[in-house]
């Protein structure tokens, strides 16, 4: 069998294989030899016997980070085959950035991961999703970042060591619009649409800057020495205005917004709205159709009823949060102590995950900033993480992204029986960070 040629200064943490994808985590240069059991363990490499019909042993496919390490990020990954030569053909999965040279070096591996499909001389193929666990947490230099303590709660600084640029993943916000000229947002905003006036644009005119606040949590420009940062430092956000200046809108405007989002080619829709207490078939169909188009729909769990105290929406449904569709992630809000916010709806069937949603600091209209609370604020933090993950590994399916976010939460006893995962999102773990 072939060998896994590990360089002495690297430690290989784990190999995880699932549904045709080999996940190899590559940490920064810290430790010596790989753990026993991984070296040359062909059986644990995911592979497809595509053309080889003989009984000859399959050639192992292995990945080794190169010596070159820049800013704690491996800048190059080296694929090695039997006898140390690179007898493979190479191709990159859709959306992966980089190239493979004649020596088997995968280059331009500057921030995060990529999916590389390798094929050996016997026709054995494998898809390797490279995941780098690198360096320590990265603190952005945005002047008001210290007001965004919720990012530390969900380990975003560690996730930023892996991925900050989500601009390869289109995200739509169906909301009150967004401040299109906000200096901390503008370059991350795409031309949106206003379904109330049926015109392009999507500017936010809301009293509380609801849509601008939401957009800032997904993708306020990060590390810019100005204001705040979003979960994504670079983003491609399409603000779709379907809610008016008072934060209200009709289902028809929302459905039109979803149609626009599909036209824009987004992969994620953020829905920080709710409040329908009767099952609405049209909205259900629209979300379901979005799922068929591969779009992840991230919805706020809702802020309770007229009394403002959270309700169990498994028992007293509120839509869209209670639809229970397979392309939805429904988000409850927690405070800084990971306790369910008093206003947050919950339900272990309808609500999948929690995120910070109390006194959340983000962008507001007219070059302003401020705090808002609500499940509206929790949802875009999940949206940002989903965009990060998808940008990091474009080959993941909707179901895989959804499952990955759900499976990497930080559990909290206070959320047991309140949300499906009993946990709050952890951005770093979701992206495969290993401390």
């Amino acid at each position, binding site marked *: 069998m072939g060998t896994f040629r590990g360089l002495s200064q690297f430690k290989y943490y784990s190999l995880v294989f699932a549904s045709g994808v080999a996940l190899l985590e590559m940490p920064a240069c810290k430790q010596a030899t790989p753990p026993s059991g991984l070296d040359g363990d062909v059986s644990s490499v995911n592979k497809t016997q595509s053309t080889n019909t003989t009984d000859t042993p399959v050639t192992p496919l292995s990945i080794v980070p190169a010596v070159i390490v820049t800013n704690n990020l491996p800048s190059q990954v080296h694929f090695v085959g039997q006898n140390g030569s690179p007898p493979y053909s190479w191709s990159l999965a859709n959306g992966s950035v980089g190239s493979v040279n004649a020596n088997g070096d995968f280059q331009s591996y500057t921030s995060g991961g990529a999916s590389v499909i390798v094929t050996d001389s016997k026709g054995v193929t494998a898809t390797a999703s490279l995941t780098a666990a690198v360096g320590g947490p990265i603190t952005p230099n945005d002047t008001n970042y210290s007001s965004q303590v919720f990012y530390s709660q969900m380990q975003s600084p560690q996730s930023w060591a892996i991925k900050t640029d989500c601009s390869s993943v289109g995200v739509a916000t169906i*909301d*009150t619009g967004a401040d299109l000229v906000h200096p901390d947002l503008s370059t991350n905003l795409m031309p949106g649409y206003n379904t109330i006036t049926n015109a392009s644009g999507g500017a936010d005119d*809301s*009293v*509380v800057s*609801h849509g601008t606040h939401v957009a800032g949590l997904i993708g306020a420009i990060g590390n810019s020495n100005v204001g705040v940062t979003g979960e994504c430092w670079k983003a491609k956000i399409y603000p779709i205005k379907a*809610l*008016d200046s*008072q*934060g*209200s*809108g*009709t*289902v*028809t405007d*929302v*459905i*039109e917004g979803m*149609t626009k989002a*599909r036209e824009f080619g987004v992969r994620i829709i953020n829905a*920080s*709205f*709710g*409040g*329908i*207490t*009767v099952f*609405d*078939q*049209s909205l259900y*169909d*629209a979300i379901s*159709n979005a799922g068929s188009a591969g779009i992840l729909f991230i919805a*706020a769990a*809702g*802020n*309770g*009823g*007229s*009394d*403002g*105290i959270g*309700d*169990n929406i498994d*028992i*007293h449904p509120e839509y869209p949060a209670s639809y229970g569709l397979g392309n939805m992630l429904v988000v409850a809000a927690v*405070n800084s102590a990971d306790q369910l*916010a*008093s*206003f947050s709806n919950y339900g272990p069937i309808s609500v999948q995950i929690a995120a910070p949603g*109390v*006194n959340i600091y983000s962008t507001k209209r007219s070059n302003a900033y401020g*705090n*808002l*609370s*609500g*499940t*509206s604020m929790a949802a875009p933090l999940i949206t940002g993480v989903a965009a990060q993950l998808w940008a990091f590994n474009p080959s993941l399916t909707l179901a895989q992204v959804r499952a990955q976010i759900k499976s990497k939460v930080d559990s909290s006893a206070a959320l047991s029986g309140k949300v499906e995962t009993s946990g709050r999102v952890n951005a770093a773990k979701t992206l495969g960070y290993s401390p």
Partner: protein
Amino acid sequence: MKPRIVILWLFLFGIFAILFRVFEPNTNQVNVNEPEKAVQSKVQKPSRQIASVPKIDLGKKTQFEEPKRESNPPKGIIHGGYSKSLFAGNIVFSENKKVKSSGLNRKVTLYAPTDRYGWVRTEESQYRDEKGVIQSRVAVMTGDQVMVRLAEGSTEDELEQLARRLGAEIEKNLTDSRVYVLKFNGSKPENWNLIYSELKKSKEVAYAEPNYFVAAQ
């Protein structure tokens, strides 16, 4: 005469005694207006206590201890609910019905259009939560629109004819689906019920439903 006077005095005394007994202050009685004193009284003489019952406010959650709120609702938006301005129009129709099966109320209200919105209709239903406390939920919808999905094999022309017959018209088609918004004159509340029920019965229509409002959370 003397025995009669004695008997009369005895009779009066007896009545007085009875009255005295009846009006003797009951120190164990709970004063519902002073729950703290009632609790003290409970501790001192538990055997003769009358339990105090929390007052139930219809439409408002009543709890023994209200959870601490983390923040104030944003101005202009009712936290967890809808913009106040949605309901700024005059109420032109309001009907409160008691649901026979549960004894709980169901209320329909139609608000006249404001500058910002068309007719707004609310349907408020009461229910009992897990603790048995009566709560209410409000569905808010446009008061002069209904959404319909065309049945398989039906055409837009057929829907247009149907709508016209009911005094409505197609306002718009939602792109890439067979869902249409029908609009009608909402000044008469019975229009809504009539058109809604007629559409639901129509063979040209797969389903009809209100055009609900959503709210920023």
